[in-house]
């Protein structure tokens, strides 16, 4: 009974379903927030898979997602800002919850993995993930005032 794979499945299933519901329904501003939360839900799942399958090479996937996920959200925040209605629904509660999930998973994996370069890599991915998501939600909450020319 591989606990890591089970945890990864729960995080993937729960986070993925919630993000899918968020991306497909509701006002555009909230959809972009759901897209932002997809990164902070799936990246810990990928880290757990890397630990569960016993293949440290899979950590590169989580590294790439932690790096490019927020970039994708910045693309939407920048180029979607042409929407007519401008109410700013910034779900800071959800963002902090997602950041906490990422931090918890990274800490658990560091404890399981033990000290060493792999742990530093995990911490780097954690910093990239949480920092990127906070910046992306900051951008969504009005980071691009009046970007007409682009």
């Amino acid at each position, binding site marked *: 009974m591989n606990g890591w794979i089970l945890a990864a499945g729960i995080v993937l299933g729960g986070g993925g379903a919630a993000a*899918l519901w968020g*991306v*497909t329904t509701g006002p555009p501003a909230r959809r972009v927030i759901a897209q932002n939360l997809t*990164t902070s839900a799936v990246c810990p799942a990928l880290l757990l898979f890397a630990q569960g399958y016993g293949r440290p*090479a899979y950590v*590169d996937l989580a590294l*790439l997602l932690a790096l*490019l996920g927020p970039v994708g959200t910045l693309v939407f925040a920048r*180029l979607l800002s*042409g929407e007519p209605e401008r109410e700013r629904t910034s779900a800071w509660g959800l963002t902090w919850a997602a950041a906490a999930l990422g931090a918890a998973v990274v800490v658990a994996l560091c404890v399981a993995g033990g000290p060493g370069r792999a742990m530093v890599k995990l911490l780097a991915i954690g910093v990239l993930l949480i920092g990127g998501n906070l910046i992306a939600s900051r951008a969504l909450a009005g980071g691009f005032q009046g970007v007409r020319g682009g």
Partner: protein
Amino acid sequence: MGGGDVYDAVIVVALLLVAASATAAVVQRDPARQALVLSFSGVVLATLFTVLQAPDVGLSQLAVGSALTPLLIMLSVRKIRRRGRSKEDTR
């Protein structure tokens, strides 16, 4: 849930998510919102590849689907919207 079932259960979860997000992408008509759903389905597809032990393909999907595809789609949407707006001004 036996020991080996977890690996299959995770594959089923990933498959369901990919199927649901792909359907949502097809159903969605507005290109800007479709780009959002496409970005989500790209990430979930990369997870499915990882679960099926194909990390190289998953890495390609992540590299292209997370930032490049949304950028291309949104730039095209902006170009069409700008042309539309300039047409209304001149009329």
